[in-house]
């Protein structure tokens, strides 16, 4: 069950971030996470894949695997934003389309990143999450 997948990955992330009680340590960790991001292919870094509403640029692509799961690739021109994207990809990538579309992403709250999720936050994490869900919802609709 990929719902369970998303949920257990969230738990993993929460435990990981519990180690840090300082914001700078969290950011340090985010910077590391950004380095492992599954990179979007250079030719796909077009306006089509650009997410609006960010101070930094974020490109995001979604593909369907043979087993019907969704895989994300992404990039950003800002390092911390890349870490945020990396975190989202790590939690969601490889899950079922429907599970992604409906996932309850409580981990963002738990690790204190909800303030980065506010729609008024300039990094556009909110737009990013919205876009991931949209991709997944579109795939899920096609699959059913």
């Amino acid at each position, binding site marked *: 069950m990929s719902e369970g997948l998303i949920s257990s990955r969230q738990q993993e992330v929460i435990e990981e971030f519990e180690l840090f009680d300082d914001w700078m340590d969290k950011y340090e960790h985010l910077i590391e996470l950004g380095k492992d991001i599954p990179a979007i292919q250079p030719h796909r870094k077009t306006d089509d894949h650009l997410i609006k509403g960010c*101070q930094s640029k974020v490109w995001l692509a979604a593909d369907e695997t043979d087993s019907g799961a969704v895989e994300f690739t992404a990039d950003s021109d800002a390092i911390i934003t890349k870490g945020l994207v990396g975190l989202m990809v790590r939690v969601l990538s490889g899950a079922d389309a429907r599970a992604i579309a409906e996932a309850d992403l409580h981990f963002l709250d738990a690790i204190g990143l909800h*303030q980065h999720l*506010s*729609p*008024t*936050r*300039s*990094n556009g994490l909110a737009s990013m999450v919205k876009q991931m869900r949209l991709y997944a919802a579109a795939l899920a609709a096609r699959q059913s």
Partner: protein
Amino acid sequence: MMMASLNLPERIRQDFPILQRKVHGKDLVYLDNAASAQKPLAVIEGQREYLSNYHANIHRGAHHLAQLATEAFEGARGKIATHIGAAHTEEVVFTGGSTDAINLVAQAWGRANLTSDDTVLVTRMEHHANIVPWQMVCAEKGAKLVPVNVLEDGTLDLDDYASCLEQHQPKMVGFVHASNTLGTINPVAEMCAQAKAAGALTLVDGSQALPHLNIDVQAIDCDFYVATAHKAYGPTGLGFLYGKKSHLESMPPWRGGGEMIESVSFEGTTFNGLPHKFEAGTPHISGGIAFGIALDWMNGVGTENISHHETRLVEHAHAALGTLKGLQIIGTAPHKVGVVSLVVDGLHPYDLGTLLDGQGMAVRTGHHCTEPLMQHLGLESGTLRMSFAAYTTREEIDRAVIALDRAINMLR
């Protein structure tokens, strides 16, 4: 609910610091609420707390204070949307007040949509804020501005309304939800339905309704609804425009500047989405936050309790004032908010108002920014108006009646 509203002032008067003060050595009796209501401590302290502890410019800031301020300000927008039953939060646009909101529609919608073939319909009981902006845009576009009649008792002439809709086929109809001079509550839902059937858009001026009535813009089914915070226990310098999303989306922006753009260059500028498209520049952040607190306060007290309390006060005032010789109440519609206008035979409202002030009582005299209504009713010197709020007591009204009696005797 009945019990709760009977005890209402007793329960809430201590929330209002100003009600402790004296005027000319006498306890203040504040009966000028239709001009502006007093503020509960929560509003005053909320604004202070914001300015002392988390003030920052909003929206584009990546730092913590900017984030806190943005969340509080946008949270207030959400509270307004919920309070008036808007379908979408982004249908609520912050403005400088009702006047600013009506000008926004008259200018942004009106200049894009009105031609010399068109008519805008308003009523003879409108506040200048719902007349002059239309006069200005109609003059520019060569469009016609037509007023609906008001009957003797201060109700709107609904037959005239129906025939104006039919005869003039207006593109826009603007009317007060409640009149600031007469107190009359108009049947806004029916009026919107009729206007819609006639193909007109509707703008409801809710300035006097927000402090007194439950408002549900989807039930009213108006296209635009405006109100101002300072009359509803909120701060000065702030109000809002509600507009149906589709209208707001198709309207061009009005003010240009920061926040309302997506990107700017000398080659061309693209505008932001709703509601920001209509909110150029740094908004009144502390005001927005404090207005949200004012709505919380009202909802805590219960709008129905306030309505019910004020209805009782109006009944009491009508009865008590009836005992004074030569006094005539202007506006005796069956459904009224807490507003009582009056004139006394042969006496100037200004004299009466001054002599009430001398006794510590704040009332308003004159045309109340409804000159066309005063002309229509043949009241050249205007009226004396007492207007009530949640904290107004029967005793205050009794004191005002005694003070008025004294004033009349001095002047006769």
